[in-house]
């Protein structure tokens, strides 16, 4: 490992005497302060005197408070706990005492200090590893995947046949409509007849006039009936004359001669 990139672990703490007169801003909580004090004892945490450490911490907090420097609640809670620990360590435990012994409390504090120190060392070792983007590199010019979405279409045979049938039925219904529309109204027939006869004074068979409309067999009846009814109406109005020379013979039509003014 090429040196420790972290600086916080290796930075020399301020001299002890000074620390004890300075506020606690530089510490990350009471455990951090305790750990710093313990490290100053320059012995393994396992061999540390928890009692001495507690006394040191309490004395420090006392001095800080004498100077009317505000101390975060965390530090005071720790101070209270250490005072309790100290009392448990100094007074022999009564037989009926259910609370944890002073030794147990001291071991708990010692464990927490060791654990915090271990985590710091672990953090430092992590940082000391060859890190991605610092010593280790990934591909500088990655070639990204282009994803083309391809649709797989789904349709069932039944849907296909249904689609076809439905369209043909729809088409068949629209084809029906013109048939119903080809019933000639009397007005239609009258207008057409007027136009066809025009000013013709010659007798012309009605079927001749209607030749182009009689081509479709299914329309023949309606065309004839409407036209004949209209012709009678036109006769009544004095517009045309109608003649039929024999039964079922052709019906002849001509414009009625206007009275000379």
């Amino acid at each position, binding site marked *: 490992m090429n040196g420790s990139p972290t600086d916080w672990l290796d930075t020399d703490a301020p001299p002890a005497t000074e620390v004890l007169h300075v506020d606690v801003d530089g510490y990350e909580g009471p455990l951090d302060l305790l750990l710093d004090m313990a490290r100053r004892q320059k012995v393994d945490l396992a061999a540390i005197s928890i009692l001495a450490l507690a006394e040191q911490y309490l004395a420090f907090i006392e001095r800080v408070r004498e100077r009317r420097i505000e101390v975060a609640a965390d530090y005071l809670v720790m101070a209270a706990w250490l005072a309790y620990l100290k009392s448990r360590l100094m007074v022999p435990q009564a037989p009926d005492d259910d609370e944890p012994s002073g030794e147990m409390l001291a071991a708990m504090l010692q464990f927490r200090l060791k654990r915090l120190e271990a985590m710091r060392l672990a953090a430092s070792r992590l940082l000391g590893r060859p890190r991605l983007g610092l010593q280790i590199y990934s591909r500088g010019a990655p070639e990204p995947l282009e994803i083309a979405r391809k649709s797989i279409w789904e349709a069932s045979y039944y*849907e296909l046949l249904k689609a076809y049938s*439905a369209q043909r039925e729809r088409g068949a219904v629209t084809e029906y409509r013109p048939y119903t529309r080809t019933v000639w109204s009397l007005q239609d027939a009258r207008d057409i007849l007027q136009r066809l006869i025009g000013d013709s004074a010659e007798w012309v068979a009605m079927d001749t006039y209607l030749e182009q409309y009689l081509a479709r067999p299914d329309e023949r009846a309606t065309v004839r009936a409407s036209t004949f009814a209209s012709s009678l109406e036109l006769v009544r109005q004095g517009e045309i004359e109608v003649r039929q020379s024999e039964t079922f013979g052709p019906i002849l039509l001509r414009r009625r001669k206007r009275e000379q003014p």
Partner: protein
Amino acid sequence: MSDEDADYGDVRERQLRIIEALLFASAEPLSLAEMSPYVGDGANLPALIEELRALYANRGVNLVRRGDRWAFRTAEDLGFLLRREEEETRPLSRAALETLAIIAYHQPTTRAEIEEVRGVAVGKGTMDILMEAGWVRMRGRRRTPGRPVTYGTTEAFLDHFGLEHLSDLPGLDELKGAGLLSSRLPPSLQIPLPFDGALREDEDPLAPDDMGEAQGDDE
């Protein structure tokens, strides 16, 4: 081999590794000048690059030259790896389904004929989907004014719908029997006999470059 040779081999091997790592990590192709500071003055960079190029020549990644610079790139024959197709199953739209059905029964048929049955225009997108699905193909061009493209179905169409032959498509009576067609339809309603064989007499083959665009002025 003398110790010196071994040392020389080690040095060269290390230089190769450094260039390899540099080229791998770089976002841009690198010139010899850019690599030089990393391997030291004594290095024969062109020879090293050539050795590396040969080493990767048959690999999944090749060392390629880009102008005066060098870079690793995915081997050309594996380029398809980087363009993956993702398949997505989607139901055919109603317009596409109807158009497909008409083509199936009326083939060979033109767009105008399809529109006549449908009563609405057939969008280009609809045809594209059917052709992309592989179910519809352009057969040829009808020998009528405007030379409209004739469309028909494909073998993939038969496959997808489980038909052996196009003649397996049910006729009028069968559709009525299946309740798909009402029995009160006008007697004039006819169902054509679909035909997907070779080109008919009134069909011309498509030219190889015929993309199906309208020709003349009638379409």
